[in-house]
């Protein structure tokens, strides 16, 4: 195949303990470490492996987000993407709008495969992959833990609640990456230097004719209710006793 597009979202790093703003308008992101969504790294790694097996010619990283998302696209380029596209918007796009923006890029780039993460760890919505596939009217293979390309089809093993499901899809298709699809490579310093010279195009969301307006109104953001403080028991006997008293064993 010629081309794979990979979605790269800029998110709060997974090690950050996220705090809700006191006014309930959102979470604190100022001065917080931002990273590539971990599932998108897995998506990119898979695309790179497909290219390295000689089954694809080009891997293009696509981010939809603020100007700063160029940092995450540079990381993607350092990992090995050939070029990158930023669809710039300062709005926090809903998955449906992100999927529409992605579709606009798809219609320009005509990829044979789109790989995204199964969810972004900020809003945890897990919608964008299937929504792209729906708007594109193409197959979706969500929660992929194994991908095999066979000419114009792909066979995908999916992590479903019951176990592992295998499906076959015609290309082009959308795949969403689960945790066990692969282990993303580490970026080496020379790769970071090389990535600086790779092409990164910035296009404005508005120029794609996609509205950034949210369909859902965010009424309030609040911290979760804390659990009541528990107790420490001194030994196994005390633990078993406590469980028996609660009628749990």
């Amino acid at each position, binding site marked *: 195949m010629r081309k794979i597009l990979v979605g790269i979202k800029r998110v709060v790093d997974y090690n950050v303990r996220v705090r*809700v703003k006191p006014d309930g308008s959102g979470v604190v992101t100022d001065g917080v470490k931002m990273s590539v969504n971990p599932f998108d790294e897995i998506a990119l790694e898979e695309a790179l492996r497909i290219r390295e097996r000689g089954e694809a010619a080009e891997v293009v990283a696509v981010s939809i987000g603020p100007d700063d998302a160029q940092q995450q696209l540079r990381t993607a380029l350092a990992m090995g993407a050939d070029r990158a596209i930023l669809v710039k918007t300062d709005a926090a796009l809903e998955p449906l709008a992100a999927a529409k923006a992605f579709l606009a890029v798809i219609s320009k780039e005509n990829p044979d495969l789109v790989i995204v993460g199964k969810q972004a760890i900020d809003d945890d919505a897990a919608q964008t992959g299937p929504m792209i596939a729906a708007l594109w009217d193409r197959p979706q293979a969500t929660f992929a833990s194994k991908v095999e390309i066979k000419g114009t089809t792909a066979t995908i093993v999916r992590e479903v609640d019951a176990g592992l499901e295998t499906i076959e899809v015609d290309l082009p298709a959308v795949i969403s990456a689960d945790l066990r699809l692969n282990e993303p490579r580490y970026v080496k310093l020379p790769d970071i230097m090389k990535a600086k010279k790779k092409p990164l195009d910035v296009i404005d969301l508005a120029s794609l004719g996609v509205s950034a307006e949210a*369909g*859902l109104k965010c009424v*309030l953001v609040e911290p979760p209710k804390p659990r009541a403080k528990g107790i*420490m028991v001194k030994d196994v006997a005390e*633990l078993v006793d406590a469980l028996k008293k609660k009628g749990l064993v």
Partner: protein
Amino acid sequence: MSKILVIAEHDGTKLSQATARCVTCASQVPGAEVTVAVFAADPAAVAAQAAALNGVAAVVTVAAGHNAHALAATLAPQVVKLAAGYSHVFGPSTSFGKDLMPRVAALLGVPQISDAMSVEGTHRFKRPTYAGNAIVTLEAPADRTVVATVRTASFEAATAGGNAPISAASVEATLPTHTRFVSISAPQATDRPDLSSAAKVVSGGRALASKENFALIFSLAGKIGGAVGASRAAVDAGYASNELQVGQTGKIIAPELYIAVGISGAIQHLTGIKDAKTIVAINKDPEAPIFEVSDLGLVGDLFQVLPEMEKLLG
């Protein structure tokens, strides 16, 4: 009135408990009239189970060979056709619902509410974000279909006792042929309870250190009649199979009792167990974050604690 269509999750013979929980969420929407839709090759058995749930007003079945396996690309156009006349379309936030519902929402051209955890009004719902560290209240537009997945751990399963009428629908939709089911490999059926719905769960983490040692977790679970869970680290290392993973990217569960053995308590793990009634933590590190959420904590070496526990449980 809120006319709510709940898309049933099933394996061809059995309605999932997640669907029964989804029905409970749907019933809580003000003015709810809940219809369960069963797409299957032969929907009779599943439809009967759905009709027996309290809170279900009607069941519609769509019987077709192409519905033998739940493929989102095949189901979504049919759901969209069936959704005409409904104000809400709900599915459980399981791998089935997470695959299907966003495809439905996009075809309808509406935003989706993922993982609804409480109903605040006909169009207003709460949902967790950032691995449960921020709870967002969202309001969906009043003039559009509300598409949502339901965080099943937040709702009790609807009980049996109802007797809703079942009718067959025929749905005219152009179906794609670009997506084909090949096979599913489910783990060997056991008499152990299912992780998603079990009242008691014993989970093991990286500390188990091998697949062989993980038998200790199975043994304790067997002793108390519980299901087995695992942290991502334990699954990644191959000590436990992937469908046992609990957490942000595994299963979100709400058992009466959750025993975490040799699990540190990363936020991604904790988000999967926050709704457990009683959390027990066994960890040799007194500083482990799991103790911040546990109701009963024991500092100790699991390789001594577990055998002793089994002995005391008799």
